[in-house]
């Protein structure tokens, strides 16, 4: 479908021709738009041919698909024309009303992050240039951060996201004694991309640990100030980590905190003192925001767990596991139902940890959740991030669990530390998500792998989503280290936090 932009443009012109003949006059704006679109398409044709090698759809003569193709082409053309006009984008993917003049559709001019505009070749070029600019100069040799290449066919709804293969690590393109990037960061990137460090809290702690090593190994070059140079040093490392695996909201907040701390170092500090202070700050951050927060949340949640409860958990959330273990130690009598889903099957790890403690558990797959829910008295969910409009971003499948629980009138409690609160706003799981390696979905049973050659099958795409968003209507309570708040109070917390930081 992706290549239909080229041919669709031609069809669209025919459509307008038809309209002209049918007596509808084109407004001045539409004529301008048409001219711009023609230019864009000419440019887009060359780029699209270069950047979209996967041309898998044969042109069918069926009129229905042609109309769909035209509509999609018009949307894409409108998007590119808007970008070319201002350099910023309006809303993504406008609805399919081709005759709305562009001027009416721009209430808020917002910049979309680049990682969700992967299907736009201009943005890809900009990203490549940005990575080049972030080169680190080592021994007068300029080496740039390599870019990881997209893998496989992407389902069209998610073609704006990046999809990498685990078998093509970024270290292939780096030199082996990595001089450009600190070895601790290379190790961390590898652990992220292979899934050895997974889970929002684990990733943040590992990131801060690596940053501690970077800071201790850092020496200020002459004529530079630590506060400015160290931040510049960290930028290519962060892009490297982003290439290995897109950063999580918690990691983003941690990075913001560190950058702020570094820039706030007064210039009269000696290097050793500055480094000591920074290492201290990092340790404080971890201690306060992660470890103590977990303790506080456990304390609040224990009040919510009564004897005889049947608690449902989904996947492996370090915080929820911690809460349940603490409650069990405090002597509460309850049992747990662990719900799991493919392809990650993280529930097995949660099951192992709970059973090791002595908690009696049941294990089901997510397809059985409506069967098991009548037994459940509460649902505890972990969160990857809490968005500013009250939506909960968590592992894919969480929104389903929340939905079914709502249908059965079972209370849903989300546990989340405040450092995972994020200022983003999202109402659906399409706009911003993460695509994992599609080969993870391939399963070999009894020596047979059905999906072995999935790339050769036309019109077949494997989609391995990582996150989804749950609306606040399905969440009854959010337990944070600031207390138990309703979902809609998240913007208040964010506002208060920002005031604190300032």
């Amino acid at each position, binding site marked *: 479908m992706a290549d239909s932009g080229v041919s669709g443009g031609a069809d669209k012109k025919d459509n307008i021709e038809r309209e002209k003949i049918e007596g509808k006059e084109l407004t001045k704006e539409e004529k301008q738009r048409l001219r711009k679109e023609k230019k864009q398409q000419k440019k887009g044709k060359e780029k699209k041919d270069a950047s979209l090698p996967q041309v898998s759809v044969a042109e069918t003569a069926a009129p229905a698909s042609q109309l769909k193709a035209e509509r999609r082409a018009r949307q894409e053309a409108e998007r590119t024309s808007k970008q070319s006009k201002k350099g910023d984008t309006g809303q993504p993917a406008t609805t399919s009303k081709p005759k709305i003049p562009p001027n009416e559709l721009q209430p808020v001019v917002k910049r979309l992050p680049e990682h969700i505009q992967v299907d736009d070749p201009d943005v890809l070029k900009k990203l490549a240039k940005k990575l080049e600019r972030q080169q680190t100069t080592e021994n007068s040799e300029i080496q740039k951060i390599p870019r990881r290449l997209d893998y496989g066919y992407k389902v069209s709804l998610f073609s704006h996201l990046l999809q990498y293969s685990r078998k093509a*690590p970024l*270290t*292939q393109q*780096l*030199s*082996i*004694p*990595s*001089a450009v990037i600190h*070895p601790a960061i*290379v*190790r961390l990137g*590898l*652990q992220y991309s*292979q*899934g*050895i*460090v*997974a*889970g929002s*809290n*684990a*990733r943040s*702690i*590992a990131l*801060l*640990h690596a940053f*501690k*090593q970077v800071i*201790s190994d850092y020496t200020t070059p002459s004529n530079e100030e630590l506060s400015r140079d160290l931040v510049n040093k960290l930028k290519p490392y962060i892009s490297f980590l982003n290439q290995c695996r897109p950063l999580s909201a918690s990691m983003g907040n941690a990075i913001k905190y560190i950058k702020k701390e570094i820039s706030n170092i007064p210039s009269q500090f000696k290097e050793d003192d500055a480094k000591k202070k920074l290492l201290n700050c990092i340790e404080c951050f*971890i201690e306060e925001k992660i*470890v103590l927060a977990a303790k506080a949340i456990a304390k609040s949640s224990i009040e919510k767990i009564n004897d005889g409860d049947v608690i449902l958990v989904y*996947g*492996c959330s*370090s915080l929820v596991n911690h809460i349940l273990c603490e409650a069990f130690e405090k002597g509460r009598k309850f049992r747990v139902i662990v719900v799991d889903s493919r392809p990650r099957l*993280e529930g*097995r*790890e*949660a099951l*192992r940890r709970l*059973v*090791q403690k002595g908690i009696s558990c049941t294990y089901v797959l997510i397809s059985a959740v409506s069967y098991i829910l009548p037994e459940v008295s509460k649902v505890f969910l972990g969160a990857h991030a809490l968005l500013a409009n009250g939506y909960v971003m968590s592992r894919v499948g969480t929104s389903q669990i929340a939905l079914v629980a709502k249908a059965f009138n079972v209370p849903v409690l989300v546990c989340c530390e405040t450092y995972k609160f994020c200022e983003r706003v999202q109402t659906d799981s399409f706009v911003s998500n993460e695509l994992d390696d599609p080969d993870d979905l391939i399963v070999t049973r009894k020596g047979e792998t059905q999906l072995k050659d999935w790339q050769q099958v036309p019109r077949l795409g494997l989609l391995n989503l990582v996150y989804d968003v749950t609306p606040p209507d399905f969440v009854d309570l959010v337990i944070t280290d600031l207390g138990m708040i309703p979902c809609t109070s998240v913007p208040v917390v964010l506002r208060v936090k920002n005031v604190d930081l300032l």
Partner: protein
Amino acid sequence: MELQAVLMAAGGGSRMTDLTYNTPKPMLPVGNKPLMWYPLNLLERVGFEEVIVITTREVHKMMSTDPKTKLDIKMKLDVVCIQEDGDMGTADALRHIHQKVKTDILVVSCDLITDVALHEVVDLFRAHNATVAMLMSKAHEFTETVNVPQRDFVGVDQSGKRLLFMANEADLEDGLIVRRSIIRKHPRMHIKTGLVDAHLYCLKKAVVDFLAENKSISSIRGELVPFLVRKQFSKMTSGQKRMDDTETVDQKNDGLTNDDLFFPSRDEALLQLAQERSCWNDHRGDMSEAYHGGKLRCYVHIMDQGLCYRVNTLSAYIEANRMAPKFIEEPAVHPSAVISERFQMGSDSMIGAGCHVADKTSIKRSTIGISTTVKEKVKVTNSIIMHGVTIEEGCNIQGSVICSNAVIGRGADLKYCLVGNGQRIEPEGDTYSNTKKSILLEVSVTFGLV
């Protein structure tokens, strides 16, 4: 700095004495380049800038003076000379350079010719924080020499990456004994015997420090690696206990505990915290955490495809010469060679610099060394001719190895011979009549079919 490279080039070539009695093994020409060029090239391509080369004085002299063996490597070579008496094992050599080692090291042997993607081995070392990561390769046909008395048994886990067991047949008197602790932790183990050990190891700095303390270990492959593999599963490997006991508990194994080897990285507590919170485990089915809580981990990368040769026997040397053109980007015929017309050359032959090749010669599947003279009507097939050789008219050389500075008289007919350094073959000589100066090669398997 992340890794330091160490090249072991002091080996004697004990299994190919015919070739090495005059030329030291690292300097044997393979594809007209000295043998040690290949691992150095591999390191250079991957991005190393400095290599510590452990070698003998003779090789060092040859490296710097002899123009025929000039190495055009751009890396900085830090040459450490050791005595040639042959008593020094590879681990002893590491102990010798202990002062120079500042970080984790990558040890390569000089006789390794491979095109492996080195990041595969190093990624295992990095990602799992392994103590040792090594490279092995599935053996190709020629190395499966029949009745090798000393097979190596290598046990790997389900994923094929974690090294669980390594022993040589010579050390196993009663049979293969697998400890219960291993089976309990890894119920499914694959034991392989047909693997070629590439002698490429990534070792943690703590291991080098450990070697400096324990002088009883003298060979990396023979003693150190099996020791580390065994140590993975000995008792007292859990993190909590590490802090408490300072006395050695595992007295059976010459009084060394994991405490010596386990060098706590900076902020061990933080790493532990991250590992606890991560929902990843390398195995499933039992109650233990990732890596079973063990701090010592050995990993191996087994290559299925690609070339990996260890040139330590004559047949390996011949095969490597055949494969050499794939590694070298230079043209097969060196520009400075003087070649007349009416000369037939096969596509997989190589002619070195400064050669003189006369009319009506035919060279197929062979390597001709530097400054060699080949006169008219000579037929060279499937052979390796080293440097400075003179081949008079009308010779017919098949499947042979002619060492440096030899002279082959007119009309000689050599089949499957090895002519030593500086020898003379009389004119009209036949292989059989010259048995004193040449050695019949019985490895007809390796030459393949034309």
